[in-house]
């Protein structure tokens, strides 16, 4: 449903130094700087797939989404969404796609949501019966039926975001771009939006691309992620592969049956790297493929009351990847 091949976007932005002198100089001469927002990105997304677009701020995620939704022209490369070149903005394509930008309101603030939805009904030529059915379903599922007649600017952020989501999905798009759909929302609202998106995916099988800084969004919704770093795609694959590839260790915690003395702790030899040790427990970093061997060794050697094995947090792993700057062995 979405095919992207060597897509790039370069912006030319004016550089302006701070200070009055620089401001005066800029009245006569301004320096242009090239900013490569997206570089040679290629990937495909199929029906029913929710793909997470993950990257640091300014990595190029939003620019990529804007190009695929037809808002921004690329500098080079190709993309097809449902067989159309998105930036040509044919009505046939626009009838079938949607974009929600969590940081920007797309509805009209002075109007109640009901009026906005009626306008969208006309814009997307939705038959009245279909519109009524979908609106009832969406408002009931997201529990905002009572707020329909309230001016949007008088709604809470969570309610407004739910209205935005309804507006996005009223025409039952086959491709949905979600740019930070849960930003600024409380945990309950985030959860309800995630559940709703999963339900929508089950029923409509759209192709979805999701960008979010909340790792819980990515973990709950996406089986596959695209890691973007400085405009380049550095990883494309299942979420679990990120863990296998970039987090080769697990954390093993053993709780002792009896408190250990300082001398016992000093003498002990553990399988794996000790992260932390005290009287009651030890935390070890153990290679992923040696976890069963190490567990067995621990249980044989010491009097252990309990053991837990933890996977590293996906958020921590991705943060680590971006902090290190390069991805060994990654394939765009």
């Amino acid at each position, binding site marked *: 449903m979405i095919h992207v091949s060597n897509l790039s976007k370069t*912006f030319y932005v004016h550089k302006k130094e701070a200070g009055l002198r620089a401001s005066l100089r800029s009245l006569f001469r301004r320096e242009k700087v090239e*900013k490569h*927002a997206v570089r040679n990105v290629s990937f495909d997304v199929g029906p029913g797939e929710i793909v997470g677009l993950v990257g640091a701020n*300014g990595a*190029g995620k*939003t*620019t990529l989404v*804007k190009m695929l*939704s*037809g*808002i*921004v*022209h690329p500098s080079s490369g190709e993309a097809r969404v449902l067989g159309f070149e998105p930036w040509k*903005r044919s*009505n*046939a394509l*626009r*009838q079938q*796609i*949607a*974009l929600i*930008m969590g940081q*920007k309101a*797309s509805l*009209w603030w*002075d*109007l109640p949501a009901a*009026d906005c939805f*009626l*306008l969208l009904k*006309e*814009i*997307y*030529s939705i038959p009245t019966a279909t519109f009524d059915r979908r609106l009832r379903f969406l408002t009931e599922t997201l529990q905002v039926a009572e707020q329909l007649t309230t001016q949007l600017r008088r709604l809470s952020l969570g309610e407004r975001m739910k209205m935005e989501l309804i507006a996005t999905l009223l025409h039952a798009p086959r491709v949905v771009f979600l740019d930070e759909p849960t930003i600024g929302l409380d945990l309950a609202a985030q959860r309800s939006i995630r559940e709703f998106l999963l339900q929508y995916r089950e029923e409509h099988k759209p192709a979805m691309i999701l960008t979010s800084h909340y790792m819980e969004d990515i973990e709950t919704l996406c089986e596959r992620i695209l890691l973007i770093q400085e405009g380049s795609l550095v990883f494309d694959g299942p979420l679990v592969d990120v863990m296998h590839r970039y987090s080769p260790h697990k954390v093993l915690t053993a709780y002792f049956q009896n408190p250990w003395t300082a001398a016992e702790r000093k003498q002990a030899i553990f399988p794996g790297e000790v992260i932390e040790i005290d009287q009651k427990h030890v935390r070890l970093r153990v290679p992923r493929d040696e976890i069963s061997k190490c567990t067995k060794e621990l249980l044989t050697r010491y009097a252990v009351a309990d053991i837990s094995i933890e996977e590293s947090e996906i958020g921590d792993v991705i943060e680590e990847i971006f902090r290190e700057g390069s991805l060994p062995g990654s394939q765009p």
Partner: protein
Amino acid sequence: MRARLFLNVFTIEARKLMSYRADFWINTLVGSLANFVLVYILWSAIYLEPGQIVAGYSFDGMVLYYVLAILLGRLVTGSGKPLDVGQEIYEGSLSRYLLFPAPYLSIKYAQRLGMMLPSLIQLAMLLGAYWIFLPRPAEVEFKALAVLQGVVALCMANALYYSITVVLQLAAFWADNVWSLVIMMVFVSRLLGGAMVPLATFPDAWQPLLAALPFRYCFGFPIDTLMGRVPTHEWFFGMGVSLAWFGLMCVLGRAVWSRGMLRYSGVGI
């Protein structure tokens, strides 16, 4: 753009504006009346002798010209509220419209017409007040044909002014802020269009230039037509010039839009 959608956008915009009651009444009373009182006092100081004629207008004729200039001017310029195309490009809120399967500039035009509905109500109220309280000029005889031609010229003026404004505001694709350009356009169009003073008061040498520029057809031409001062052959000529300018602006607007969209970033990266 489909008629139903056009009508929907139009009514939503009108409802939105009329929901702000204070703004409506301040606009009606302060905006229109204060403006009228000012020019009434000014022209009273110029027309010192009874029966005096200035640029072909009697005092009562001049008063009527200004009443129409103030009220019809609002119908041409969209309630006096500046078009927000430039602002939407600058702020990136144009993006939401680009996703809709409907032409952006047609949606904006429907919104603009919707904005004028309160102006139509103001027009009816203030014209009624004029009819009751002020003497009508002896030289003006309202004829059905002149009124019909005036209404047609007014519709054309509205479309022409919109097209000029859009082309100017599309400069926001290149310049971050087009506010000064918009202000300049408002001032120049009102001055050279006859909204500030009737164009007949300009020197004769200026008249061919004023007739060739598009601004006259936004203000002075429809007003003079309604007042029965434009013979039919001149009206056809004026409509021809208006149409030519409108066509040029459409072609120019399309070209600027296409080039501008290549630069549009939707704000942020």
